[in-house]
């Protein structure tokens, strides 16, 4: 084998990284462990909102709304945890330098890791679907619930996964990366918990629509609990969609600024 001539990779760099990352995520305790935690939480919540009438203070539609919103929030969080570890984790474990001295383009490194982290959300959807379908069958909103989960949830998850990766590219410590990403996610999710009057006011409404996380969660509430049609609330998908595109572009753009960190 001669290294003299620069060889064209047999596959795109991002697909090589994605496959390796997916294997590393799912063929270890990390991916399955996080998914198990997610499943247990969702199962416990589903039980609380549906099984015990004495505890359950919600009607059937509200129960579905709570489960879908929780699945989106927690599922997104799992993908965020994985993506915010993606680059800073390599840096901290001392594996980044070996990657940076290969011909792999840094953009491909980020795209491959983005795909791997997104798989966490896909797995979260798959785990959530049975809970959502069973709960939503009673009030007859199973179709809407699944669509909200898949469409709104995927846009929010894509936005936050890219956001976590962007932070991970810049943060010199894994702890900083993880803490920053989760804090900002909680900050973004908080407005969806605003009291009804504030949230329904003009400013509150605009703020919720501009915030991709609260917009996605609000959509689930309006469609599943408020019994309002998609046509009235499609605008709530705009900010998650824009955030997904913009933050993915930012994460890829920031790949050029990935540095080793411990230069001296």
């Amino acid at each position, binding site marked *: *084998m*001669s*290294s*003299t001539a*620069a*060889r*064209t*990779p*047999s*596959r795109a*760099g991002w697909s*090589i990284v994605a496959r*390796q990352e997916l*294997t*590393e995520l799912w*063929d*270890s*305790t*990390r991916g399955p462990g996080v998914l198990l935690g997610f499943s247990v939480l969702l199962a416990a919540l589903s039980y609380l909102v549906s099984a015990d009438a004495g505890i359950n203070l919600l009607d059937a539609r509200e129960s579905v709304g709570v489960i879908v919103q929780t699945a989106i929030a927690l599922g997104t969080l799992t993908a965020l945890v994985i993506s915010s570890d993606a680059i800073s984790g390599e840096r901290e*474990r*001392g*594996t980044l*330098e*070996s*990657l*940076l*001295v*290969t*011909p*792999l*383009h840094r953009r491909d490194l980020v795209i491959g890791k983005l795909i791997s982290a997104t798989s966490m959300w896909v797995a979260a959807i798959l785990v959530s679907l049975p809970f959502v379908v069973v709960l939503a069958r009673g009030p007859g909103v199973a179709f809407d619930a699944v669509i909200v989960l898949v469409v709104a949830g995927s846009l929010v998850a894509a936005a936050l996964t890219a956001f976590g990766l962007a932070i991970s590219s810049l943060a010199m410590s894994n702890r900083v990366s993880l803490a920053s990403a989760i804090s900002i996610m909680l900050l973004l999710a908080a407005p969806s918990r605003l009291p009804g009057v504030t949230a329904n006011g003009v400013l509150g409404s605009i703020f919720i629509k501009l915030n991709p996380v609260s917009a996605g969660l609000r959509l689930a509430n309006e469609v599943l609990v408020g019994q309002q049609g998609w046509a009235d609330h499609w605008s709530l998908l705009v900010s998650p969609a824009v955030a997904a595109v913009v933050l993915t572009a930012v994460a890829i753009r920031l790949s050029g600024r990935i540095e*080793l960190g411990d*230069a*001296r």
Partner: protein
Amino acid sequence: MPTSTNTPNRLHCRGLTVKYGEYVAADHIDLDVAAGEVFGLLGPNGAGKTSVIRALTTIIRPADGTATVAGADLSDQRTLRQRIGVLPESSGYPRSQTGLSYLRFYGELFGLSRAEAGTRAEQLLDQFGLGRTQQRISHYSRGMRQRLGLCRAMINAPEVLFLDEPTLGLDPAGKEDVVRRLADIAVQDGTAIVLCTHLLDEVERVCDRVAIMAAGRLLTTGTVDEVIDSSAVPRTSRLRVNPDDVAAAHEILDRLDVVEQMQFDNARPGDLDLRLASVTSPTASSQVLTAIVAAQIEIRAFETDRASLNEAFLALTTATGAIS
């Protein structure tokens, strides 16, 4: 094997300067390493060795200077990276992967097909004694991980191999094995090897030439002998004459400028321990012998101990204040 006009330089850098803000980590470094040469880059902690390696492997951008590595300019990063192998000092490893999948991944990053990368990975695992390919890296000993790092650095059959402390964590037999393999790789494959290590015994055995850095500056470059000579470490000699002649010999040698220090060995009458100014006066040993022979004193033995690279290293770096 010193560089010559007949041997193409695989690494050539001039005035390479690395700065972190105002701090100058490497100051106008000039290096040449030929194909098939093992080159030792030495220096105390903080000397700037790792900064030089990181600049030459495109990890950090130098503030000044030019360099070509394996025929590629530093600005042509992708081509350069395709042709080099690097084992960083504090290299980490994904614990959940097997050695085979880890190496295959790197092979693919260097443009090999999955099948080619697998074959190459198996060859290297066998070559470095890591043949149990289904074992996860988490079960590897430190020495095994270090050897795996060497395999990874060689997955693309590099033209230039940068190794930062490659024997770290290895037992004596493991160190010996790696050093022997490095020498073989340089000779058989014509790979230029840049070796950073604190183990100067290894360097003395395996390196064709060495450079010593301290405080970001290059203090000296040359063969091990040249570097020892340039360090001005005095050589010690032992002269043995008939015990009856030892006083006369002492008197004669006392008059020679090249003898800096002299003392009797009370345990062995007839022996004189000499410290010669061998650096400033390369003919010091000859002058001593000539003077003794001229005085018709019978010489029973004369031995000269060569200064070690370790002594030279300490002398050079202490002189710069890098080591107190």
